[in-house]
């Protein structure tokens, strides 16, 4: 009988870590396997962004420890994320079955889940990441974008502005954490408009200032709808944004045929697809 399937528990179990995603919308996206990782853990750490979602998680396990208190205004996020790794590893080293729970997908624009898995594996512990539905997945559905139609580039906004990245304006461009441009810590308000003006200056090398950009927020509670705002690129600095919004630029140019490669494919076709003589 299927219901009776179970693995006998080992005595002296070694610690382990699983990082799982809750998905974006409470009640809608959690996979059966991610839920099972949560329920079977000894300790659960929660890196979620909504107090209601955290309460929901507490219904699934009696020992849910919030990672939120480790943030601090003015404290570098990189310090906070290292602390998260240390907290989770301390329990793994103590022999616990640990589950790190993050909203969305635990490995999409999220440093600690990848890091803790790397550290745990290097120390010989079992470590696993279980995918979840990310903001990216919701964006494709809510905005009607297929990344395969034109291609799609994703950048973390600070890396995009501070490093010399190549933009392909024939593809979709998705920019994450735009409200946090120039903020290495956390903040309840978005960065001053002057920072986002730098982003617009960078983008204006590849896009006209009247290009329509979308500011997108996926529903996190099931009584919400997605929020989709369209503004001209030039207005991006003065449009208030929240940290949970993602900016999407549609392609600004048509793709061009590469005649050189097309000729090479045609030459190969003559060899490999020549009609077989009757």
């Amino acid at each position, binding site marked *: 009988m299927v219901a009776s399937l179970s693995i006998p528990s080992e005595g002296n179990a070694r610690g382990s870590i699983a990082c799982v995603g809750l998905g974006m919308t*409470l*009640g*809608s996206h959690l996979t059966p396997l991610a839920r099972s990782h949560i329920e079977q853990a000894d300790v659960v750490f929660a890196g979620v962004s909504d*107090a*209601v979602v955290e309460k929901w998680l507490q219904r699934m396990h009696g020992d849910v420890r919030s990672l939120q208190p480790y943030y601090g205004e003015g404290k570098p996020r990189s310090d906070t994320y290292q602390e998260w790794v240390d907290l989770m590893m301390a329990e793994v080293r103590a022999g616990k079955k640990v589950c790190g729970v993050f909203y969305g997908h635990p490995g999409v624009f999220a*440093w600690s889940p990848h890091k803790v898995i790397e550290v745990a594996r290097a120390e010989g512990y079992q470590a696993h990441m279980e995918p979840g539905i990310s903001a990216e997945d919701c964006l494709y559905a809510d905005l009607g974008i297929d990344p395969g139609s034109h291609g799609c580039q994703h950048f*973390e906004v600070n890396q995009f502005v501070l490093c010399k990245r190549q933009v392909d304006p024939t593809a979709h461009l998705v920019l*994450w954490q735009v409200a946090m441009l120039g903020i290495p810590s956390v903040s309840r308000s978005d960065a001053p408009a002057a920072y986002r003006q730098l982003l617009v200056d960078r983008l204006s090398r590849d896009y006209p200032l009247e290009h329509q950009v979308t500011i997108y927020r996926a529903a996190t*509670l*099931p009584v919400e709808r997605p929020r989709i705002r369209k503004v001209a690129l030039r207005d991006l600095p003065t449009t208030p944004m929240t940290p949970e919004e993602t900016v999407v630029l549609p392609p600004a140019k048509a793709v061009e045929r590469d005649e050189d490669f097309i000729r090479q494919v045609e030459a190969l076709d003559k060899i490999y697809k020549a009609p077989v003589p009757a």
Partner: protein
Amino acid sequence: MADTIELLEAIGRDASLRHATADALAAVLERAKASHALTAAAATGDSAHLKKEFDYRLDHVTQSSQTFPIML
């Protein structure tokens, strides 16, 4: 009063509830004896109403940190 988290989970997993109009959902919730906060959140699509029901805490959206360690 019905349990808000249970109701939210029930809405999240049910196709007709998840995609009901705000009015229809608010009516269903009123009949189910949902809290005023949840009914107001459903009627307006604004979850701020709901957050007031819990210890109000505006949490930080977790942000990835990959750029700053590279730059510093």
